[in-house]
């Protein structure tokens, strides 16, 4: 493994995008970033601009309004980039499946513009912060 890859794994800067969730997943993500779970131990930092981000934390099913915005923000994120799809909604559109404005789960939307894009699934409704840390660790191992 190259030194750069090692550095990448030790310093993931995240940007949080809410794509029409019910907001529970977002609250859990905010919990994840509080001192109690202390993700800065692994070098994870919340940044204010997608240009600085390595990972996008996306929640919710993607609807017609948020789809173009999600794609725009995804393309603005410099490579290498990872997308974390949080919650049942993000993975499979969950309880919104078949809704009139549902544009599909996050991985489908991302793969439309970037077939190579890495999407990590974090199941749960909402996933616990512990589950999120577990997902991040597993994803970094698999990279």
């Amino acid at each position: 493994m190259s030194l750069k890859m090692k550095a990448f794994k030790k310093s993931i800067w995240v940007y949080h995008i809410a794509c029409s969730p019910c907001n529970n997943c977002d609250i859990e993500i905010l919990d994840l970033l509080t001192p109690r779970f202390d993700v800065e131990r692994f070098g994870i930092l919340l940044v204010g601009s997608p240009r600085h981000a390595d990972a996008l934390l996306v929640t919710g099913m993607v609807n017609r309004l948020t789809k173009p915005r999600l794609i725009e923000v995804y393309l603005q994120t410099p490579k290498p980039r990872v997308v974390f799809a949080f919650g049942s909604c993000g993975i499979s559109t969950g309880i919104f499946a078949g809704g009139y404005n549902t544009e599909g789960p996050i991985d489908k939307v991302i793969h439309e513009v970037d077939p190579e894009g890495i999407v990590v699934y974090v199941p749960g409704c909402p996933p616990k912060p512990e589950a999120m840390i577990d997902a991040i660790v597993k994803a970094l191992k698999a990279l």
Partner: protein
Amino acid sequence: MIIFNYLVFPGFLFAIIIGLLTVWYDRKITARVQWRVGPPWYQGFADILKLFAKETFIPATAKRTGFVLAPFIGFSTALLVAAMLGVAGLYPKMSFTGDIIVLWYLLMIPSIAIIFGSSASGNPISQVGSSREMKLFMSYELPFVIILFSIAAKAHSLSIGGIIEYQRANGANLWSLSGIIGFVVAIISTQAKLGLVPFDIPEAEGELASGIMLEYSGSLLAIFKLMKALLLYTLPLFLITVFLGGMNLQGFGILWFIIEYLLIVFIISLIRNTNPRLRIDQAMNLFWAILTPLAILSGILSYVGL
């Protein structure tokens, strides 16, 4: 020998390594204040390496040359200041008359580079940030330069070496009434120069989405981060040189120097962790209406000999 001094110790390489370690130290203190564990010691190095490995965007609306040039200008001046201060601390005899003025000018250039880069980026939010940075810049330089000149007048010398030797002969500047007032003013100005929390108005993650740095990514951002790390090493070193008699590398001097350095960074990060962000008009008020009169008072006191 002198080339070694400029390039390795206590010049460029040393400054970068210590700067990045100081970034970690600052983040670790932040973590301890919040009862967390905090990042491992190599965090600063990992961040920079990762940023260099990432893709670099140049926005379509940006003015290319200015946008790319700005980080390099800021970084190289910060590097130069760090090396000059280090060498002057090692050999006080070697500094030339007026180098304190040169240093003062060079210390301004990183802020100007930030203003330059963010206004070249063509992003309206970045431009709000750069206008704020400009206002902040005008406010903190005034008390800072008054303090600097009162100290130069006290030492009857316009060179770093002269100020250091004056302090070695007569005791550090800090241990007098004028010195204490001056130190307080200087440390608050330093906080603003570093763009840390009560004065992170141009960066303001909550309202401006990291404002001045908004459009930077990849290696350009890495160079800006390196510049910030260097400033985090240089400005405390500058305070030590001007107020605490510089770095003395003989015998117990090293230990004393390390303690002083860690203590000053500790104070800076405590201020940053226990204060809310000021509005830009509040910051200007603070610097012009409160700290400038204090700086003048300290100048008068040092003239009287207190």
